[in-house]
C-alpha cells in the first residue's frame, strides 16, 4: 500500500474535520450570508462574516452536510454555479471593505449535473479565476479534505494555499484518472502515486505554501489552522495592494 492512496482515504474519511467544526471553533461569531445575488443560494457553499483575532474577515467554505438529507441538497459538497457566484459576491464585498478572505475547501469537484451545466458551471468557475484573482485583499485557502480539480481551484486562486496533513489536491480523482487513461478504475492506488496529490509533494512542487500538522482533536486542529492563518494574514496585510497582486500573479506565472 503506498502513501498516496492512504492520504486519499484519510482525505475522504468521515472522521475528518467538517465545515461546521471549523465555524464553531475558528469563527464562533460567524454570521452567514446567503445567495449569489442573482439566481439562487447553493447550500454546498457556506459564506459569511466573522471576527478573527479581533478583525472582521469573510469566511467561505464548501460544505458536505451532516445527514443524508443535507448531503443530497449539498450534492455531497460539490458546488453549483450559484455557489461559485456566491463565493465571488462575498469575496468582492470583502475586498470592498478591506477584509481578508479565508476559504476552506473540501470538495470532490464542481457538481457535474445537468442543471449545473444549464446555469453555466464552466462560466462560473472561469469568472472566479478571472475576478477573485484580482481582488486587492489577502485571500488564503485551506484545503481540509479533497481538493478536486477546477471546482477546488476556483476557491484556491488567491495569495496562498495551505493543506491539512491528511488532504489531497489534484486535477482529477485517482479513480477517474485510472479509468480515463487506463480504462481501469481499479488501478487507483497507482494513479494516486503518479498524480502527486499529497500535501508534501505539492509543497515540493510549489503548488501550496504549507502543510498544517494533523491533530486528532478537532479543537486542537482548529488551533493549528488558526496559528497559520493569523500569521499569514499579518504578513499579507503588511504588503501594499500592488505588491500583493504582483506576488499573486507570480505565484501562478511560474507554472
Amino acid at each position, binding site marked *: 500500500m503506498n502513501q498516496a492512496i492512504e492520504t486519499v482515504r484519510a482525505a475522504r474519511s468521515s472522521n475528518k474535520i467538517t465545515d461546521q467544526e471549523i465555524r464553531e471553533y475558528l469563527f464562533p461569531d460567524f454570521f452567514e450570508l446567503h445567495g449569489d445575488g442573482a439566481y439562487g443560494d447553493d447550500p454546498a457553499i457556506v459564506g459569511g462574516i466573522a471576527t478573527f483575532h479581533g478583525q472582521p474577515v469573510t469566511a467561505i467554505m464548501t460544505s458536505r452536510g451532516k445527514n443524508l438529507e443535507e448531503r443530497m441538497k449539498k450534492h455531497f459538497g460539490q458546488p453549483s454555479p450559484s455557489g461559485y457566484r456566491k463565493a465571488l459576491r462575498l469575496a468582492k464585498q470583502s475586498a470592498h471593505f478591506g477584509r481578508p478572505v479565508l476559504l476552506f475547501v473540501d470538495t470532490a469537484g464542481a457538481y*457535474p449535473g445537468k442543471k449545473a451545466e444549464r446555469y*453555466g458551471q464552466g*462560466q462560473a468557475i*472561469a469568472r472566479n479565476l478571472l475576478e477573485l484573482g484580482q481582488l486587492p485583499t489577502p485571500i488564503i485557502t485551506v484545503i481540509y479534505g479533497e481538493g478536486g*480539480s477546477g471546482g477546488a481551484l476556483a476557491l484556491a486562486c488567491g495569495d496562498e494555499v495551505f493543506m491539512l496533513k491528511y488532504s489531497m489536491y489534484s486535477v482529477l480523482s485517482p479513480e477517474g484518472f485510472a479509468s480515463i487513461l487506463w480504462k481501469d478504475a481499479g488501478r487507483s492506488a497507482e494513479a494516486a502515486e503518479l498524480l502527486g496529490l499529497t500535501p508534501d509533494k505539492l509543497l515540493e*512542487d510549489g503548488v501550496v505554501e504549507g502543510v498544517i500538522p494533523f491533530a486528532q482533536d478537532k479543537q486542537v486542529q482548529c488551533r493549528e489552522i488558526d496559528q497559520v492563518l493569523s500569521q499569514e494574514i499579518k504578513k499579507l496585510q503588511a504588503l501594499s495592494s500592488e505588491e500583493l497582486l504582483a506576488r499573486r500573479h507570480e505565484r501562478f506565472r511560474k507554472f
Partner: protein
Amino acid sequence: MQLFEKNNTLSGRHVKTDQSTWDQVPDDFLLRCPKCQRVIFRDQLDEYMTCPSCDYGSRISAKKRLEWLVDDYEEWDVGISPADPLHFPGYEQTIAKGEKHSGLKESVWTGIADFGGQKAALGIMDPTFIMGSLGQATGEKITRMFERAIAGKLPVVLFTASGGARMQEGIFSLMQMAKVSNAVAQLKKAGLAYIVVLTDPTTGGVTASFASEGDYTFAEPRAMAAFAGRRVIEQTIHEKLAKDAQDAETVMRHGFIDAIVSRQEEKATISWFLKNGGRYESGN
C-alpha cells in the same frame, strides 16, 4: 443461427459479380456528418470543411484553419513543447502522435495575424493534438501570447478546442487555468479586446477558464460547448441529456454565447469586431 444466408442477399451477389467496381471508389468518398448524420460526398466539402446540410464545422488542425482564416501571419514560440512533469508512462508516444497529426509541437498555435487589415494576436487550439488538451506548454504559449499582445497593444483572438485539462500533466495542467486567467485579466486592465471563438469541442478546464472570459464569445454552428462531458453527466449523476443540450446553439439560448458564426463568415466578423469592438479612438 442466421435468418438469411449472407451471400444470397442482393447486395452480396452484386458485389460478388463486380468486385472491381469497389476498387474504383476512393476510400473517403462518402462521409457522415457526426451532428446531423447526413451522408455527404467528399467532393461537397470545400476548404472550410463544413457540413453542407447543417453547417457544422468539422474538427480541423490549426494549420488548416490558417489557410482561410487570415490574410497574413507570423508564428510565435514555435519551439515550445510539452515537458513530462509526472514522468507518465507512454506520454512521449502520445506527444509524438499529436505532433504527427497536427504539425505542431503543442496543442495550440500562436502568432500575430492580419484579418482584412486588422492586426491581432491569434491563438488556435488544435483538436488533432491530444484533443487540444491543456498542457503546461499550451498554457505557457497562450500566456506569452497575451503578454506580447499587451506589450504590442494588440487585441487577442482565440479559437478554443479542447478536451480539457491534460491528465498526463496532473496538477501542473490545472495551474494553467489560473495562469492564463491572470493573463486575460492583465489584457483587460490594458483596455484591449479579447475575442473567443468556441469550436468543436470546447470542454472541461478550458471552458472553466479562458474560453469563458472573452469580451465577445462566438461559436461555430453545432460546436460542442460544455464543462462536464455527456458521459460524465450520464454515468456519474445518471441524468439523461437531450441530444442538443451541449450544442453551441443551446448554450447561446442559455445566455453564454454572443453569436453563432459560420466559418465562411469568421474572417469578416472578426475583422469587423477588431475594428469596432475595442476601445474607440477618434481618427482611427
